[in-house]
């Protein structure tokens, strides 16, 4: 059973780190929300949106945030709750109050540019999936019969990786993943800006999630045929060698994806790949 403090509080104090737009100064704002049983951070934010007034009675704009599924499977609602990066939909208020009865503290993710309040731009995370070619390159979508047979053991090994919901917790926690925030120049078209962003992202660390996806597709019997291309990407600058093996990623992943196992495998594959390339010269 969820342990509920014997006397449930009347109110929940919530402190939110806000920011009106990119490049603007951030500031804290405090809200007081009536306590209800079974609340999570999303329902707290919903109550704030419905009546955006600070604890000291000032009317303010509602807090912006991102969410969709509300059952920890879409990856949208990541934020830093009480100092830990996690999904806000599965962050239950009763649990958070056990951590800190005084207040709940909400901050945007730290490694991604803030768009507004708790909304961040995570496009870099998806760009990394392009870099490692995280897909099975089938010939066509015509009817060609079933895919290759696979043992249940192989399925059990791949399945955890296929649950990565691109939430970015692992990236936020990784000391080697540094924030990149680019600003569109006046003389730049949208396309030019996007290209500059992509190029910058590609030079920097791909991140543990993408390494795990590369492993997933290298395990797939068809994906295996392009294993070299993925390993190549992981050997390039910003690849697996950037990882300092701090293991923060694996401890925050809400899906408990074996990221360090993937990183170790990728590291070995990268070494073999480099040696092979050296011999092929």
């Amino acid at each position: 059973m969820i342990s509920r403090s014997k006397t449930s509080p009347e109110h929940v104090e919530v402190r939110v780190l806000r920011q009106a737009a990119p490049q603007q100064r951030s500031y804290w704002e405090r809200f007081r929300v009536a306590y209800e049983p079974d609340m999570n951070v999303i329902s707290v934010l919903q109550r704030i949106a419905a009546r955006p007034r600070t604890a000291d009675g000032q009317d303010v704009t509602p807090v912006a945030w991102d969410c969709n599924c509300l059952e920890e499977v879409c990856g949208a609602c990541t934020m830093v709750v009480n100092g830990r990066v996690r999904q806000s939909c599965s962050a239950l208020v009763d649990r958070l109050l056990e951590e800190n009865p005084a207040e709940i503290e909400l901050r945007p993710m730290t490694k991604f540019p803030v768009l507004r309040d708790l909304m961040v731009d995570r496009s870099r995370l998806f760009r990394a999936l392009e870099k490692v070619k995280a897909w099975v390159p089938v010939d066509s979508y015509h009817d060609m019969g079933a895919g290759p047979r696979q043992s249940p053991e192989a399925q059990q090994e791949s399945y955890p990786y296929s649950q990565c919901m691109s939430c970015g917790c692992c990236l936020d926690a990784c000391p080697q993943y540094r924030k990149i925030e680019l600003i569109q120049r006046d003389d730049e078209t949208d396309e030019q800006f996007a290209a500059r962003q992509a190029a910058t992202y590609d030079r920097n660390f791909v991140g543990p999630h993408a390494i795990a996806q590369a492993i997933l597709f290298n395990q797939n019997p068809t994906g295996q045929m392009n294993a070299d291309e993925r390993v190549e990407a992981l050997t390039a600058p910003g690849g697996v060698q950037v990882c300092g093996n701090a293991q923060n990623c694996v401890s925050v992943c809400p899906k408990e994806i074996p990221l360090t196992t993937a990183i170790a495998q990728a590291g070995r594959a990268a070494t073999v790949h480099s040696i092979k390339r050296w011999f092929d010269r």
Partner: protein
Amino acid sequence: MAQQKVVVIGGGLAGLAAAMKLAELGVAVDLVSLTPVKRSHSVCAQGGINSVNDQTRPLGDDEWIHFDDTVYGGDFLQHQPPVKEMAYWAPKIIDLMDRLGVTFNRTPEGFLDRRRFGGTLFKRTAFAGATTGQQLLYALDEQVRRYEVAGLIKKYEYWDFLAPILDAGGQCRGCVIQDLVSMEIRPLAADAVIVASGGPGLIYGRSTMSMACNGSAASRCFQVGVKYANGEFIQVHPTAVPGSDKLRLMSESARGEGGRVWVPRTPQDSRPAAQIPESERYYFLEDRYPEYGNLVPRDIATREIFNVCTKEGLSVESERLCVYLDLTHLPREMLDTKLGGILEIYEKFQGVDPREVPMKIFPAVHYSMGGLWVDYERTADGGLTAASPRNQQTNVPGLFAIGECDYQYHGGNRLGANSLLSCIFSGLYVAPSVVSYFQTREATGEVPPALLEQEGRRHQERHDALLKRRSGKENPYLVHQELGNLMTRAATVVRDNDDLRSAIETVHQLRDRADRCALSDTGNWTNQNVVFTKSLIDMFPLALSILQGALARDECRGAHYKPAFAMPGIEADSPEEKRRLAEAWCDRFEENTKKWLKSTIAEYDSSSREVRLSYEPVDTTLIPPRPRLYGLVGAEVIEEVWKERLASRAGDVSGNGSGAGTKETVAAS
């Protein structure tokens, strides 16, 4: 010829399937979505996806029976050719998903493992743990990313579809979209627009659906003249876990894997579930439906759970309605490999381990069978004409609809694991049809820039006016809450004409109040307040279609249940009397079929802001409608009488019930 371009609205399974297939056909795609497509609602689907397969075939299963189960489960309200086509495509679709790398569970020999879902006697459902929707969506997302890199697909993520753009001739020539971050409003020219925007769960406040499922895109099409069909058919899932922000689904696969539904025979028995002996447990589904047991079709399970709690007063708790869904008798290891994902969700959100303690569940709004009206072209043998431009096209030329937002496949009630199928099927199937549409439509030339500019400006003005609105003090979130409560009371499990009439009146009042909503954020950067208010305003046309459709339909069919018009079973002592009553029952059934086996078509009149209803006949030429008798008292006699009638008509004896015999009926007639 210049490169053709299609705008796809929505990147759930349906939208992604369409986008990747169009890209394969060499068509450029602009893919617009409220959320990054990988976060679309389809990720929530847990249970699986249906097709006939090599394990079910030896047991007598085939595509025709899958088709039959689907129309029987849907109470015959769907046109049969598209459903038939889908059932025949299903095995190929699963093959494709397998090739795309979906991590489906495997048998020891390495084939796809299958489970059984509601409304069928066969193990047709392929699954990837308990996160099948997620795996399927990711596989398509990956293919779309591949084409994005290749330059054929351009994504507009965090963009809101505001409206289709129609030219003077009524043809769809593009759409207006808005960036949710910068608030920029932009018209997009296109040769066709495909709407794949999913279900409208938010109209009910809390449901099992995701926050992006607000129905706005469908409503915006409806408001420019697209017909909305069978809106009153809303599926309420029997098993959801009540929460303050969302009603979280407990997948049917929990029952598919052996989960049992029960309540203590003593009302609100205060003992922990484990201490209540077998003899004091009431397994009411197994009791009342011995053949299907816990796997009766959804509408029936929902009503039974609802009734056991409300009418029979057997709810497990007194302050909150719920029944037990019990997995504790099943081996832990099996539960972990087959249901791990959903059990974790329960544990995470309820703080209780469902492997140890029975879950507490109650029905929740889950799926809309109704949706945007779409066309199809039938072949002589009752399938679809591949690549016909009519397939999936709405009544507005150039505007197509696929996935949960179309009304085509599930009739009065959707079978479990059939929706992922219809989403992928309609998405793949629409692509060549759109290409044919380019070839067959009259040459229209470039989209007039003036038209684009005018439509962009119109929406900009509406947006600006909303931001400036100072009049009134209504709060959009509170209005939404009231709308949700009202809809949940009036238009879910049990429907009553007086309630519906008064709900329609209240919806009008709520709509007027929404018109007077003041915004708490009047800025023009990532303004979620104005986006939500727009979507709220657009909920009312669909809410009215649902309520008016339900009010008008004086019968029970599928998920639409009006006790005042129910056809109760028959109870009599003497066989003669039973026969007589069964004959009368069948007469009444046939009369009702004549009167009500038709699709509700809603049309929106933008000047009066009212919804008008009309009806359209349903193509039931492949499988003649027959009564759904699940668990009805006297079902055997009724079935007997029914079979005799069918036989005398077809000059052939054939079966009812499981539908296995229907093939012969059709072959003979």
